[in-house]
């Protein structure tokens, strides 16, 4: 199949165009997603093509418009809600956590809430404490939600299309420093399944598990490690709830060493969950304790030197791996 090289942002944009064209029930709603084309430029062209009722500009009322998305989904529409920064999703936790995640279960299995909440996560750009968080662990903690964190343009497009077609509420987290990244995507229609991890690099000496931008760091670290004849396998979780522990377990059974990289804060984070699951499921195959590389337990600081110190990095991953082979 022939491929094209496109930006992550454009891959998402293509997914929205294709899904809105395919299904008249799909619409996008959020702050400046319509006329302006989206602060993230992901919704560019939707307003012109589909009109103001399907590319809906909202007031700055995250709880309100997210709640409206839940209501619209309950009566059969398929809203894609854009929350500009995941930090702002804290204002919408009521409809996300109390309503969307629970409606199906607490109403006895009749309701469906096919809503996608697209949001921008992560740090590294000097946006400081209220615009740089990685809150995937918070949403992953909630039964009823699916949480997606793509790392490549190809995955971003295929996963967003799957998320829109999925009948469950999906939190779709796009890393702010991935929007400008480029990568190959297949021509024509394709989907990437939710809940399935991807082995981004084959290796035999250790396994690095990560998601979102941390996959890029993990791959860079793996290349450097290869120069030292350390052969790392890199797994991109892609979906962080549900976790594809089958793929993680298969890798650990082969490599016997596991590093988990996650941009969220250390305590109670996603890395802790993957670590716990790995200990439960493949403990006997491990030759060394599992190592976590995460953000420090601090709010994300502004100053560049401080922010870099707070976040995971390629070098921190390499250092963690060196610990295995001293």
């Amino acid at each position, binding site marked *: 199949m022939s491929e094209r090289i496109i930006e992550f942002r454009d891959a998402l944009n293509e997914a929205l165009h294709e899904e809105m064209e395919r299904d008249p029930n799909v619409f996008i709603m959020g702050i400046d997603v319509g006329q302006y084309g989206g602060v993230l430029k992901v919704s560019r062209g939707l307003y012109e093509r589909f009109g103001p009722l399907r590319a809906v500009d909202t007031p700055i009322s995250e*709880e*309100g418009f997210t709640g409206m998305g*839940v209501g619209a989904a309950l009566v059969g529409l398929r809203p894609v809600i854009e929350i500009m920064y995941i930090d702002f999703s804290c204002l919408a936790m009521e409809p996300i956590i109390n309503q969307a995640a629970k409606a199906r279960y607490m109403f*006895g299995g009749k309701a469906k809430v096919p809503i996608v909440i697209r949001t921008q996560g992560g740090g590294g750009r000097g946006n400081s404490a209220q615009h740089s968080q990685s809150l995937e662990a918070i949403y992953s903690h909630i039964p009823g939600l699916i949480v997606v964190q793509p790392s490549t343009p190809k995955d971003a497009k295929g996963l967003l299309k799957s*998320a829109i077609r*999925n009948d469950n509420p999906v939190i779709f987290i796009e890393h702010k420093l991935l929007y400008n990244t480029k990568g190959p995507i297949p021509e024509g229609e394709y*989907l990437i399944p939710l809940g399935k991890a991807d082995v981004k690099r084959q290796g035999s000496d250790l396994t690095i598990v990560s998601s979102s931008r941390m996959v890029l760091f993990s791959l860079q670290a793996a290349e450097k490690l290869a120069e030292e004849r350390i052969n790392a396998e890199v797994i991109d979780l892609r979906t962080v709830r549900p976790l594809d522990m089958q793929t993680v377990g298969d890798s650990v059974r082969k490599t016997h060493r596991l590093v988990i990289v996650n941009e969220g804060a250390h305590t109670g984070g996603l890395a802790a969950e993957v670590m716990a699951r790995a200990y439960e499921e493949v403990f006997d195959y491990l030759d060394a304790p599992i190592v976590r590389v995460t953000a420090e337990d601090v709010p994300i600081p502004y100053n560049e030197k401080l922010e870099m110190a707070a976040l995971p990095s390629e070098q921190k991953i390499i250092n963690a791996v060196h610990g295995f082979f001293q």
Partner: protein
Amino acid sequence: MSEALYLELYRKMVLIRMFEEQARDLFMKNMMRGATHMYIGEEAIAVGVCAALNQGDTITSTHRGHGHCLAKGGDPKRMMAELLGRATGYCKGKGGSMHIADLDLGILGANGIVGGGVGIAAGAAFAALYRNDGKVSVCFFGDGALNQGNFLETANMAGLWKLPLIYVCERNRFAEFSYTDRYFSDPDLTKRSEPFGFPAIEVDGNDVLAVHQVAQEAVARARRGEGPTLIVADTYRIMGHTIGDPLTYRLKGEVEEWQDPSRDPILRFKNYLLGHQLVGGDQLETIDAEIRQGIDEAVQFALASPDPEVQTLWDDVYVMEDKGL
């Protein structure tokens, strides 16, 4: 006004009253878990409003939600079974009193969060606008919920986009364990819609015909595409916030005043119908007997129903068919 409508309004109000009295008794006998909130004394609002709706129209309800559900056509048997946590209940025993929903009847759920329905109702109204299908959405909530930020957020969007939405504020005078007048900077609640450019109507919430009339007007306005209306229905919460509320915060004698036949929504309507010879006393007695029998059957149905199997614990957390594949 037809005789059939009079009888229907009466029937639904009596159904709610008897259902609630039965639920209270079951709760007092420790046959229900958690907490439950009684709609007694507020029946005219749910009944008057829902009589102005079609089946395809939607409502969102509250933690005090049994009345809304019954008024919109909910099945008392499946409701009673849910209150007792049984497998045959609306939520298969997983929701209980505060989470009863019937999407086929347009009941988008009671809600355990005060004001939790305002966003959902606005979303259903947006869907009606989106599909241009002529449906309206009704959002029931108490006066306490008017102070939730999400009411202001969604009321702004509802006014801005002229959503076919009817806000029904049941001014029952209490926010949990306080008189609500302690919490309003301005006690005139009809002003709450003013900044958002849609009208508010105050109505005697214990007068089912008056409620029905303002609801019809609001529904017609919404269907004409003229946008939302706030109905402030004045009433009184006869019982406590929950069953077992010690009511220490309440003025002496006040409940009795509101239970007076001149104020109680059911007695008042009954006296009106009989006084104006609009229906016969025997007709109302027949309804009372039918409802009593229906409630007894609902209890029997619930008691005869099994608890859910433990393995159903994991059912319905997700829709399992992966449509993404």
